[in-house]
């Protein structure tokens, strides 16, 4: 296992890095590393990176897993010493099953790309361990292409992860910079293939109902957090709207997990971190709204009686608004505060500080498998939903709005738990909850369009504002028509949902 945090450095903060390093005894090296793969990059696709590097004694071969293992900054790693500059393939057995190995065409193994860097290394002993910090300046080369490298990596060599966290904070205080979630290998492959990374969709969290509660909770939190973070480089490199969306989905899942486990969490000391997460989530909200408007609402409007002048001004202004928000979001993600947030969040999740260990009796809960908790928690949330539903059935539109909000909460909070409950029960109930939320959500679409366009309007130049507001008014009027059909659907979809709920949980 290797635990390492990377920060991107640029010309502006290079000096402060050097100054920070000079506090310690520095070792300087010229280092060249060759990454091997087949012409079809079969190793990468199988989830490993293989590299050779000359060092003082001879040649070192390193294999690492491509993605994180358990914790955002931790990967599986293995090193062996070689006598000649030829990859030793038997080493791969540590990482890949025989089946996977059989499928790789090793005849086509070749140097895929190489990195050449000037490294400055310091070993930073602290009270509770040792961190090695490495500053690399150089380039990645693949065929005719090259790309600059300038980054600092802090690797935990000894002791607990607190030591690493401490070093990172101390470093960030002296060197304002952004987190680097993309490693050298990923950049190398990009250079070789010319392919940009694709948005990463949420994978199903599969947790056995027998897993002890804290372990299962930690896994749910880490998976959600990592899902958000893998979309970060995609977003910074491509600006793909889906990657923004997926980044938010990851954070939303993290928040959902916190509400799923709310009764047994102790968050009093973590308020700052959670607020920060919420505010990042919300900051990205209007960017997401703009993307939805451009992709979906405008497409639907095109088929209406909208005058083309309205259409064009809406499109132009919302696009401008989107571009601005995109830049702002980018600045957020590249900020030092955000780097701090990521490392803090990661270590907070790993620390299990969030477990409420107030009373001795709480220990019992943590020894139990998550399945027991999941089922009774879902039952409780369903009771709340039924209560709000009973009000709405005989109430007015306000009550339906309350039910809409409750449905949204329950849908997200139950998501991580429903995945744990075995069989078809969980997924089928999740589907029926999301259907209900879709219908109820239509109640609010109109409000959302109105609020969103009002927000855009603030950004519109004064000379265009009159025209924009007219177009916006048309849009809102058009939305009102579709909202009235939503009201007719409320009773039947609620009843249908209620029946399904009874069937599933009786």
């Amino acid at each position: 296992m290797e635990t390492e945090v990377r920060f991107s450095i640029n010309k502006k903060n290079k000096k402060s890095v050097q100054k920070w390093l000079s506090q310690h005894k520095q070792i300087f090296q010229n280092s060249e590393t060759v990454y091997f793969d087949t012409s079809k990059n079969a190793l990468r696709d199988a989830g490993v990176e293989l590299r050779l590097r000359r060092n003082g004694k001879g040649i070192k071969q390193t294999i690492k897993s491509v993605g994180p293992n358990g914790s955002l900054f931790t990967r599986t790693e293995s090193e062996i010493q070689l006598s000649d500059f030829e990859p030793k393939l038997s080493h791969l057995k540590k990482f890949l099953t025989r089946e996977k190995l059989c499928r790789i065409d090793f005849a086509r193994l070749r140097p895929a790309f190489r990195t050449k860097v000037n490294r400055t290394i310091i070993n930073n002993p602290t009270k509770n361990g040792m961190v090695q910090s490495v500053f690399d300046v150089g380039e990645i080369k693949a065929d005719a292409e090259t790309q600059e490298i300038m980054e600092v990596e802090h690797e935990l060599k000894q002791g607990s992860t607190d030591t690493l966290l401490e070093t990172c904070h101390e470093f960030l205080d002296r060197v304002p910079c952004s987190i680097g979630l993309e490693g050298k290998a990923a950049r190398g492959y990009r250079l070789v293939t010319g392919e940009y990374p694709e948005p990463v969709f949420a994978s199903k969290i599969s947790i056995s109902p027998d897993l002890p509660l804290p372990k299962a909770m930690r896994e749910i939190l880490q998976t959600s957090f990592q899902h958000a973070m893998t979309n970060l480089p995609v977003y910074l490199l491509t600006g793909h709207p889906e990657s923004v969306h997926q980044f938010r989905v990851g954070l939303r899942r993290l928040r959902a997990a916190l509400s799923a486990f709310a009764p047994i969490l102790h968050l009093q000391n973590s308020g700052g971190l959670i607020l920060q997460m919420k505010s990042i989530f919300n900051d990205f909200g209007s960017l997401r709204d703009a993307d939805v408007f451009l992709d979906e609402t405008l497409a639907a409007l095109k088929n209406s009686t909208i005058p083309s002048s309205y259409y064009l001004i809406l499109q132009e202004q919302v696009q401008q608004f989107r571009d601005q928000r995109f830049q702002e979001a980018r600045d957020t993600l590249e900020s030092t505060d955000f780097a701090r947030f990521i490392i803090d969040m990661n270590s907070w999740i790993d620390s299990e500080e969030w477990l409420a260990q107030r009373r001795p009796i709480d220990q019992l809960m943590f020894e139990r498998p998550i399945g027991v908790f999941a089922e009774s928690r879902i039952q409780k949330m369903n009771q709340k939903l039924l209560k709000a539903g009973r009000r709405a059935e005989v109430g007015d539109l306000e009550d339906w709005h309350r039910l809409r909000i409750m449905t949204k909460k329950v849908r997200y909070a139950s998501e991580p738990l429903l995945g744990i409950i075995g069989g078809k029960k969980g997924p089928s109930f999740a589907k029926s909850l999301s259907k209900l939320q879709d219908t109820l959500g239509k109640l609010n679409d109109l409000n959302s369009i109105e609020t969103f366009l009002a927000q855009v309007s603030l950004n519109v130049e004064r000379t265009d504002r009159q025209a924009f507001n007219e177009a916006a008014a048309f849009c809102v009027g058009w939305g009102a028509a579709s909202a009235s059909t939503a009201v007719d659907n409320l009773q039947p979809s609620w009843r249908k949902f209620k029946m399904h709920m009874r069937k599933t949980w009786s």
Partner: protein
Amino acid sequence: MAGKICVINAKGGCGKTTISTHLAAALASSGLKTALADWDRHRGATHWIKQRPKSAPNIELADWHKSFGKVPKGIQQIVIDCPASLKSKRVRQVAEEADVIVVPILPSIFDEYATKLFLRDLAEIKRIRKKRKKVLMVSNRHRANSVASRRLDDYLEKLGHPANHHISDRSIYPQLAAQGLTVFDLETKPMFERQMEWLPLVRDIETSVQLPDLKKGKSKKLKS
């Protein structure tokens, strides 16, 4: 299916109701849907639940005098406060079908003798004789340095049923009982100390009771 915890001893006043209410409260306040079945003549459990404040973790009452064998809907664990006798067929049946049996006993010569007879009757249940069902002996009103408590431990050891757990003698137990409470319902340092004393017993019970939601296969229904 709910896990069934049977608290029983032929001797009256040995702490069956005190232990039943505490086990139920421990399970409920750690998040399980719990019921307390009152089947004792004195209806101590019913009275206790009626006193219980709304703010305390909910424990459902199952009145087994009225509807014997009933387990309320959605319950994960049920603690049964049994009558002080193994003579009736029904009691033997409940003991037979329980997942675990908890036997409180006091440090007194009379209790020792009554318990000896009780354990002999209990051994007529096959699964118990064959040690396939756990019987947990709880030495109640324990005083670490008292002669009587030490005597009891020796006695149980010789009977082949050594005390599995000890609950100490504290005036707080009758005081809390009068308010429908247990040491699990208050968050003070002395209560936390008392909670620690119960943890090993509750843990032992939980490992003996298969966890309800993950339980595979069917379990028999009580015939009423």
